[in-house]
């Protein structure tokens, strides 16, 4: 079946199987920031923005995003995204890096909708992302630092 959606700012058509998972399609299209972790929606490594909202692409069929706008980390280059990248590095919020794209997507989504989040709101926004290396403290610090500059 043919589906059509905006991927990272470009309107595109894709020939997909009815049961094809969005995660698999995005990776096949070269968006390798979208990681395959649990494939059950628990770890957040495959997080993308669908119409601006963070969702796990492993729990979405590709057909579900027909007509929508999908953004992966490859498509995020505005000031907020670049600031998040810088602060995650400066704060030491990255270790193995596997979860980082998903955490950045969740952080970007949070700061797009709430430019002055409390620590509790940051924690809640990152609830859907598992990180086995950092213990989250540095990631929360990084988001706080970006928010302070907005």
């Amino acid at each position, binding site marked *: 079946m043919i589906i059509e959606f905006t991927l990272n700012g470009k309107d595109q058509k894709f020939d997909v*199987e*009815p049961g094809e998972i969005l995660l698999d399609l995005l990776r096949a299209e070269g968006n390798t920031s979208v990681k395959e972790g649990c494939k059950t*929606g628990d770890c*957040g490594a495959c997080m993308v923005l669908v119409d601006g909202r*963070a*969702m796990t692409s492993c729990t979405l*069929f590709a*057909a579900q995003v027909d007509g929508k706008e999908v953004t992966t980390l490859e498509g995020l280059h505005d000031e907020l995204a670049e600031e998040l990248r810088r602060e995650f590095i400066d704060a030491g919020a990255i270790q193995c890096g596997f979860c980082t794209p998903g955490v950045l997507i*969740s952080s970007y989504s949070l700061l797009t909708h709430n430019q002055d989040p409390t620590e509790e709101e940051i924690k809640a926004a990152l609830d859907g992302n598992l990180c086995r290396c950092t213990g989250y403290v540095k990631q929360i610090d990084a988001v706080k630092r970006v928010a302070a500059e907005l």
Partner: protein
Amino acid sequence: MLQNVTNYHYPGSLDEALSLHNRESRSYFIAGGTGLALSESRQPIALIDLNRLGLDKLKTNSDTKKITVGATTKIQTLVKGQEITHIANDYLSESLEKVGSYPVRNAGTLGGSIVRPFPWSDVIPILLTLDATVEYYDGSHGSRSLENLYEKEFRSTLRNSIVTGLNISLPEEGVTMARFFKFARSEFDVSSLNLGCRVTIHDGRIAEARLVVGARPSFAQRLYEMEETLAGNQASDVSGRHFSELAKSSVEVGGDQKMSEEYRRAQVKKMTEDAINQIITDYDQRK
């Protein structure tokens, strides 16, 4: 995820969706897909997407004193910024914020939570506390109390219907307050136990009460005896500790790998006590 999806349809009307459902030998309706994501079925299945049917609207009807939430409304939509979520002093928004994580709430829908009623569901006890009714379409429009959800006959009706929305009655005159608590192993794990409590106080007297316990670990249960005992009391005389004993003894709970029966019962007692005490304190402050 489902392993053998044979077709994916985008109907433009309820009748077209039903007709597709009847035509396909096996099909599921899909909105957010968070429930279907848990299925690993290898059986051939067609999916019928309900997102183009306009079922994501929120309506308040002041004549019937009801609010209607469309079935494909995302859970996160109701968490913040919606006028209707202020009922029972923000109960709906504050309790729905405890459901899953952001990505789950961004994708998951209220209708999906009803159609696939997992025993650990937080949404069902929250809506039961508010006396919600389920609206469905099976060729004609129908409506049933959410309380009937676990009845065989209603399940059978829903298998051949499209859930179109949830109706929630606006609280009657008086001050209505509610609390929702959940116990889970982590912020993003499903509930090991949850409890919703709503109380309407009119002229200092409890006019109506609801107490619902979910993830027992079986489906949610209303504690009628408890509700009846609470109603009629002067709010100022009510102590959470006293009523929590009744909740503990009357709730039907079991044990599983997450919680023993004894621990679950003790948690019901504690949650009930906290819910009632917080509601009464809130009421005193609002007077």
